[in-house]
């Protein structure tokens, strides 16, 4: 009887030790939140006919989910490497973190960049973004043409972006390779619209016709989101 009590007490004692952490890791890192797949703000078929339901399901549930999973795995490895003081592993993990973390960050923005037509998808932006676009690109059509040309020209996998350069206070069109976020092109760049030109973003529906995909996607681009982000940053810039 006393043996059983002793074992139970031992078990409780052991569990309390485990709960206390038992490591010397920085508590900030330990409690660092893992990434999780955000829900789509609309149904999978809501962007048809511009983007098919099949693509939206694969893109969100498979591709984005894989980036999230692999990113969390890499973060976990990073935690261990840092706790062990394994500096070469810490450095080696950076490319996996950049690729998968970038994939997560980029796609999280992308879902917000899109909206069904009946929820404003395709509707031109409001001011001040609208005026800024006219000032920098001549017109909204001019901007779209430029982004389409640059998006089509991306070799291999990547993204085409409309961004705000907070430092120079102007709009920019940039492309990034693979899952590099826009900030890799300029630390002061804020993404407003990102369009995924990896083949997985359009292949089942458009096959090799990337230009066609780019032409059609504008009918579901959520300009309201871009205009809101632009307005917020413009306000911040003005008050600086």
């Amino acid at each position, binding site marked *: 009887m006393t043996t059983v009590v002793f074992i139970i007490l031992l078990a409780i004692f052991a569990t309390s030790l485990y709960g206390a952490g038992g490591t010397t890791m920085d508590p900030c890192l330990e409690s660092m939140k893992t990434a999780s797949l955000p829900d789509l703000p609309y149904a999978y078929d809501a962007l048809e006919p511009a983007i098919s339901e099949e693509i939206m399901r*694969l893109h969100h549930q*498979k*591709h984005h989910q*894989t980036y999230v999973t692999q990113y969390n795995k890499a973060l976990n490895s990073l935690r261990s490497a840092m706790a062990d003081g394994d500096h070469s592993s810490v450095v080696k993990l950076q*490319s996996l973190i950049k*690729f998968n973390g970038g994939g997560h960050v980029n796609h999280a923005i992308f879902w917000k960049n899109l909206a069904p037509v009946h929820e404003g998808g395709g509707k031109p932006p409001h001011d001040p973004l609208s005026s800024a676009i006219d000032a920098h690109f001549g017109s909204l059509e001019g901007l779209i043409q430029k982004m389409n040309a640059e998006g089509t020209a991306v*070799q*291999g*996998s*990547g993204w085409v972006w409309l961004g705000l350069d907070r430092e120079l206070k102007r709009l920019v069109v940039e492309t990034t*390779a*693979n*899952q590099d976020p826009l900030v890799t092109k300029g630390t002061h760049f804020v993404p407003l619209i990102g369009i995924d030109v*990896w*083949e*997985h973003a359009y*292949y*089942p529906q458009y*096959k*090799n016709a990337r230009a066609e995909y780019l032409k059609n996607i504008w009918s579901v681009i959520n300009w309201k989101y871009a205009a809101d982000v632009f307005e917020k940053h413009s306000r911040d810039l003005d008050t600086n």
Partner: protein
Amino acid sequence: MYCKKIMIVQMIRRTATCTATCTATCTTQLNYQKSKAIKTHNTQIPLACALLTCPLKLELQSRSMAASTAVTANYVLKPPPYALDALEPHMSKQTLEFHWGKHHRAYVENLKKQVLETELEGKPLDHIIHKTYNNGDLLPAFNNAAQAWNHEFFWESMKPGGGGKPSGELLALLERDFTSYEKFYEEFNAAAATQFGAGWAWLAYANDKLKVVKTPNAVNPLVLGSFPLLTIDVWEHAYYLDFQNRRPDYIKTFMNNLVSWEAVSARLEAAKAASSSSA
């Protein structure tokens, strides 16, 4: 007056020919490139060229290899050595129709347009690839030229009823350089699976050794100084219709059911011949 010489060993599937082109660039530098893919043949070519106004082309046959065939200055879209539905169910007819019929065709057509009325026009594909690779600082025509080459090489890396384990000398070398065929299989699979974004995985030969290499976008072992023996295309367009996001399944299917070890063996023979002929 000296001229710049670039000697290029062309790996044209089963054949290896040496092409020396001598162009008058009025440079005062004799430039022998010693990388593995570019060999020099001092004894057969005069060193100085005087007042050349047009390119000279000297064709040398290496050993007993047959005359060069396919990859000519015409940049042809060669069909795969099998019908477009012959690789089913492992690679669908639809994939071949798009991958060969649209993607590969576009690389060839766009290359022709791109080199038209430039100094690259009429040059062999290998020459264009090396020139436009430009030591990693890629020139515009590289993508189309290398992709045209890569895809022809890819179709010929596969055959109906292919896959499985090789035999003979090739197996012996794989076992020598990777410890076992299984270890090679793992390494090749891992390279193909972990190439970020678009690219290729290769079995290549250099310095009498076999190795697995992965490359981004259009880069291939020719520009990295080794002989390509086998490749798998891991651009998403290569597998998306049949496998969607499941690249690992595509790679396994390729290894188990599609690889043409005959083609790999023939390329290995050519690579060994080309290597030793310059020794």
